[in-house]
């Protein structure tokens, strides 16, 4: 049994953790949350220099060709630091979509720039409140011209290209399109978000130049494959955040006195934090399962991804809200940092399908395994 990260991967974790402690302290998160900058550009440059954006990109496309296990390690540390950078959009979604379905030419055009962090990619699915499906989409593409609007798109204001899901009359009812965002026919406007440390935009397309990514009518299947991969990586971010929230709650409880002793000595607080630990541990172990499935291209990936995602959503939401509760009134102030986790946890809960959507997919994966 070797169900654990290697010594090298653990070393990478230590390096990443140390780097982010120095370069992405809560003050850096706050600067983006309170300021006008869409993301921390300095941090993004450093992250790219460390090669994190190049992790799973093959060497022939300018990457370093490591496994998904390394990317999971990085994701956890970015989640812990609540990093205000477009990493998830560009790496888990933009880069992964090209790796999944891009032609050799598309990969050669974008992957080297994604690897260096020079280009930022994103993924644009939702158009209106509620769960997206091929039938719900109004964005269409005809003769290489894309028309429609997507909102909210994570990092849509700063990305160089988006992978856009459009309705199709063929196949599964959807197609993916690679759309450069700096050309004619694309307009973008920022969208205010619950978590302002991660910028989002509305993208409007009026005959924007688009090239197909994957076959026409294969877009919904590809979206599911892409989100299965991304779900594991987002889950690691969520677990990182959940553990950071637990540590924050504990640190405060150890130093805050009430009724003559640290509140950490009162059972109501002890049990609350122990329950956070329990959820975090379950989520973390499920994330191991997801990491294993992702890195070995296992047939179990749909089930493993949904399992990791479902328990990570639960863990981070619970940790983030009970962290505020542990802090009492101070946790509810703008001045305290508890809000960062509360905001980020909710953003990560809804950004690639909510808990209910992934619960449904979990059971569907079990049903499919039985039918196979």
């Amino acid at each position, binding site marked *: *049994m*070797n*169900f*654990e990260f290697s010594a090298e991967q653990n070393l990478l974790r230590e390096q990443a953790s140390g780097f982010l402690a120095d370069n992405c302290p809560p003050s850096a998160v706050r600067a983006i949350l309170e300021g006008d900058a869409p993301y921390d550009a300095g941090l993004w440059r450093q992250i790219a220099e460390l090669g994190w954006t190049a992790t799973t990109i093959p060497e022939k496309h300018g990457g370093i060709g490591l496994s998904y296990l390394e990317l999971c390690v990085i994701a956890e540390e970015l989640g812990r630091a609540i990093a205000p950078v477009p990493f998830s959009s560009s790496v888990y979604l933009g880069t992964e979509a090209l790796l999944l379905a891009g032609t050799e030419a598309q990969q050669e055009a974008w992957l080297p720039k994604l690897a260096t962090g020079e280009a930022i990619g994103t993924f644009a699915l939702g158009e209106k409140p509620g769960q997206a499906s091929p039938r719900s989409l109004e964005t269409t593409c005809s003769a290489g011209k894309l028309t429609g609007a997507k909102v909210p798109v994570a990092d849509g204001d700063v990305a160089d290209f988006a992978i856009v899901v459009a309705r199709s009359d063929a196949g599964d009812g959807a197609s993916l399109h690679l759309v450069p965002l700096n050309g004619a026919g694309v307009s973008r406007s920022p969208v205010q978000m619950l978590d302002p440390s991660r910028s989002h935009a509305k993208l409007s397309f009026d005959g924007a130049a688009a090239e197909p990514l994957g076959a026409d009518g294969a877009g919904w299947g590809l979206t599911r494959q892409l989100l299965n991969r991304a779900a594991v990586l987002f889950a690691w971010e969520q677990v990182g955040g959940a553990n950071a929230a637990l540590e924050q709650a504990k640190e405060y409880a150890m130093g805050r006195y009430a009724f003559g002793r640290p509140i950490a000595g009162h059972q109501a607080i002890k049990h609350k934090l122990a329950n956070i630990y329990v959820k975090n541990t379950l989520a973390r172990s*499920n994330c191991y399962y997801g990491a*294993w499935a992702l890195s070995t291209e296992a047939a179990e990936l749909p089930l493993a991804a949904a399992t990791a995602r479902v328990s990570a959503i639960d863990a981070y939401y619970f940790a983030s809200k009970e962290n505020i509760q542990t802090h009492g009134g101070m946790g509810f102030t703008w001045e305290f940092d508890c809000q960062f986790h509360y905001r980020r946890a909710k953003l990560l809960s809804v950004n690639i399908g909510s808990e*209910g959507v992934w*619960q449904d997919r979990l*059971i569907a994966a079990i049903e499919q395994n039985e039918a196979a």
Partner: protein
Amino acid sequence: MDFNDSPTEAAFREEARAWLAANVPSEADLTGLDPMARAKLWQKRKFDAGWACIRWPKEYGGRGATPMEQVILTQEEGKSGAPDTGFFMIGQGMAAPTMMAWANEDQKRHYVPRLASGEDIWCQLFSEPAGGSDLAALRTSAVKDGDEWVINGQKIWTSGAHYSDYAILVLRTDPNVAKHKGLTYFFVDMKSPGIEVKPIKQISGDSNFNEVYFTDVRVSDAQRLGAVGQGWQVAITTLMNERAAIGGGGGGVGFRQVYELAKRVDLDDRPAIEDKRVRGQLATWYAQESGLRYTGYRSMSALSRGQTPGPENSIGKYVGASKTQDMASFAMDLLEGSGAVVDPEFVESAGIFQGAFMAAPGGRIAGGTDEIMLNILAERVLGMPQDVRVDKGVPFNQVPTGTG
């Protein structure tokens, strides 16, 4: 990252499998034997061939195997169809480690191999009516009389006392000092005059536990483990092994059983499994079971590398017990009016859901209540302070007590 055995582990697994395949008793071997006799037959067969309690040192009946080899053997035995040996769990899992740590050499060589072979069954006499979660508040007394001690009082919640040969027990030997300091640890022959075992009828209708009464029971000072007044420290050895021995309390109801039920019963004229709320609930429980399974794999990986597993496995009993209770309750909801039926003629799934529902409250209490488990996690894993103890340093006979 993989789930594979190392080459040495794979070789051991092969060896274990081959031995089990050749030696697990056939139905013919077991015909006419009750569960206890089946367990004893199988345990003796394992012992004679060196496959019992393999982690223990050779001189005490084991073979000095690694923890990982024990895990592999347990896995393979679980798949082999061998008789259930749960009767030996407390003796082998709790009494034996305590004896090995605290008994003298002659005692270890006499008693421990008999535990390994299944010849003797032991129980644990710790809890009392006034000492449960606050175990050190126990009152059953031992008073020195020459080379013997005279025991009077009552123990409770003792699993298997009615079929046990020996027991480990903690007694109050000095009520004039603070709670933890007046305790001494012994082992006792359950056939000693003055011991009376009375079964407790549980809400499930079963009787897995007993009350054990002591009236002037005499035990030799040679059966004392540790020094007089050192009983709490010895008890910690036992308790450290308890949660590992007790496990998840699955009760036979898990994701698979409720999922299969949801495919069979209707909700809104469709199979219940098509209902989003049902799917959501089931997915939550699946994720919990999966989380526990992979937490176990992480611990096994540490064992496999020769390391001590972290504290993460200590969540198992806490998560498992409530999950069983909630899943049984949910399954009964899916059955609607039939959910409360236990009549063998009409009951669904041979009554596993109703059975688990009625047994589940015990799972949340035995071996450390949910609340004690949370305290342990908070204190030992997260490093949070202990609770305020108003009886700290107070002589035991001056500590306020309730009426119970």
